[in-house]
């Protein structure tokens, strides 16, 4: 029985008691309320890798540094925590496709039917990074991280357009799209998830983040919003500090 269910049993009845799984709840005559019933996010802390293996870390860091290069607008993807972000996502429910329908038969579909492969996101990274590593070495005469930035961009572009073919079960184009999508999530999501360090992307574009009240600003048309961003992570740190 998880904490949430345990707490709720005091306020409401359970329809039937069997094993330790959450049961149907019966609620009548009152609006249930329990303290701490919500599920706040657990902040990601950098340090160590939960999914990526050492070789994969080297590759991923080199890749995200080309997808989001350091320049006068923001630090690099790696320095913003994008690889940490993707690592934690792949180690969790996203990586194991917990929310996807994963029953067969797996048949090649039409583009309108969406992704139809039996690999989970974690499986796609594992196979995709290895295949990309090999394809780059074979085609560009050196490992990805040793290539010049120009050559690295070329390798990524060729993966993006399907020119660079990957061996095995992995569709290279689809794999690139997945890596790009996850990298951008890491760059733009709340820092609580491990990326967007110091809210770098939000400062770059002028997004105020987790603010919740713009009533005094809604009709100040065509004027830059004056306040900097805040994050959920900040809210949590503040709450802990009391």
């Amino acid at each position, binding site marked *: 029985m998880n904490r949430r269910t345990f707490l709720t049993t005091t306020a409401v009845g359970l*329809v*039937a008691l*069997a094993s330790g799984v*959450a*049961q*149907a*709840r*019966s*609620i*009548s*005559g009152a*609006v*249930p*309320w*329990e303290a701490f019933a*919500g*599920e*706040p*996010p657990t902040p990601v802390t950098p340090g160590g890798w939960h999914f990526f293996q050492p070789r994969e870390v080297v590759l991923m860091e080199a890749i995200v540094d080309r*997808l*989001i*290069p350091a320049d006068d*607008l*923001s630090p690099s993807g790696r320095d913003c925590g994008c690889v940490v972000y993707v690592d934690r996502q792949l180690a969790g429910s996203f990586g194991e496709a*917990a*929310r996807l*329908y*994963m029953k067969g038969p797996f*048949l090649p579909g*039409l583009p*309108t*039917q*969406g992704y*139809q492969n039996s690999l989970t996101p974690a499986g796609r990274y594992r196979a995709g990074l290895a295949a990309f590593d090999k394809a780059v070495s074979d085609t560009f005469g050196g490992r990805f991280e040793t290539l010049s930035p120009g050559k690295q*961009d070329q390798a990524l572009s060729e993966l*993006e357009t399907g020119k660079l073919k990957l061996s095995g079960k992995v569709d290279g184009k689809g794999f690139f799209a997945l890596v790009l999508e996850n*990298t951008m*999530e890491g760059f*733009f999501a*709340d820092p*609580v998830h491990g990326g967007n360090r110091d809210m770098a992307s939000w400062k770059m*574009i*002028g*997004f*105020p983040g987790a*603010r919740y*009240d*713009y*009533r005094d*600003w*809604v*009709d100040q*048309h*065509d*004027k*830059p*919003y004056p306040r900097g961003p805040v994050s959920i992570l900040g*809210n*949590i740190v503040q*709450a802990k500090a009391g």
Partner: protein
Amino acid sequence: MTTILPKKDVVIIGLGWTGSILANELADEGLDIVALERGPWRDTATDFNIAYMQDELRYAIRKDLFLHASEEAMTMRNNTSETALPMRDYGSFLPGRGVGGAGVHWNGHTWRFYDSDFELKSHLTERYGADRLADLTIEDWGVTGRELEHSYDRFEQLAGISGKAGNIDGRIEEGGNPFESPRKRDYPLPPNRMPYGPALFADAAKSAGFHPFPTPAANLSQNYVNPLGVAMGQCSYCGFCERFACANYSKSSPQTCVLPVLMRKPNFELRSNSDVRKIELAKDGKTARGVTYVDTSGREFFQPADLVLVCAYALHNVRLMLLSGIGQPYDPATGEGTTGRNYCYQTNAGVTVFFDDKNFNPFIAGGAIGQTADDFNGDSFDHSALDFVGGGGINCIPTSGRPIQHRPVPKGTPKWGSAWKKATKEAYQSTLSFGVQGSSYAARGNYLSLDPTYKDRYGVPLLRMTFDFPDNDIRMSHYLSDRALEIAKAMGGREIAEARRDKSWNSVPYQSTHNTGGAIMGSDPTKSALNKYLQSWDVANVFVIGASAFPQNAGKNPTGTVGALAYWAADAIRNQYLRNPGKGLVG
């Protein structure tokens, strides 16, 4: 082993918008009611936390509050010559799950359909001739807009809708939608204040000859106490509306409008985490005995009841009917059968204007806070010289600046690297998008059925959707996109990018959770599953409430009409059915 529970007067399947309205109305009749909801209990004070609700990744991208495909997926194909495959992740639409249903994480555009929408087939046939409708299977609803007026009003009052009437008893009101059908009184709250984007849109639309007005919104412009005595707060334009729950008590939902009253009624019981699998029929096939459901540990229960209200969201309503053998399944080859018939959607298109010098602050936004021009919606314009029927609302309702999803860049921009970054930064503050929300008219080949191959976690067939945009709707959408372009040009931006609607329906990118039809209401039992009171023609003690009852969809969001139909059905049950239980209310 199935545990048989004590009988109830009424069992309600699903506690979203329709379930909570029906439950509250029927509880006032003193009936003993149980609602079975497959998701968890959720409430503002406990679950919609203002310290962490603004988490785009968790709620908008990982879809924390939604139904996940792992729990129940659906299959899709564009036509009967294709093999349907499962949508392994929900994309094009996102069904709700849990107490409050999709009412928790909707945007809040709250429309009334036009009177002509309810008598669509007769109206269009009379005006343009039957030939014009040859490729379509549109129908009249059996209920008229005038009959529904009071029910619309009740939903608007319940939800504290903020807007401006355009037509009160035939008198055109300044500031509202001049094409609106007559209503008896104004919205309960005035419109919201407009952020810069919609304000600019309104000016441009007026200069181009359109009649823009504030979109009726379930994001409250002021504090409000609804007729049930439930208090709500003013919207703070936070920009975390669609896909999120409101932590402010400012967006109308079952939680903010109904549940505080309903949950306290002693003759109402909610069982959450209770997934209804089937409506059980008596041997004659004409009476429902109750429903079978399972809890999250897999234990099965039979809940007997005299009256079964199916309020599980349009698509789930239809699947439950098909699984339970209610009505004859529709067959597109013969055009016969009723359950699954006339599945429709929404035909959307968009346009984006890039400026050099503007500052829109796109994050100052609400789910429905914006402007609409309805000059080309429904039959508000003359189609005589045109090659289609239907229309759409042109809506400038910038709902958020959340940057994982909202990052407009001009055409030709690379997707990554320094050039991408520069373009992203430049466009973020200075770009405005608006859209066309077009009608979706029924066609013979678009329908819902059970999938022959793919099963849910209990081994029961998934729902199969067969759908593509009918040619009529594609022509309509292009015509509307041309109109939207006129407004875009009047804005005087640097560059315009269009997103026009073409075939085929793609299940991956998000479009709209406005799935309609499949268990439609009407006056002909061979063409509709329900009579005009949303009562099954085949099983008289089953009412099926939701957008599944729409014979076709208008160029408007459905929930205003869904809420009205909930009150309409509740009145029919209270005032007619309960006097003569088990009997059909029509014919």
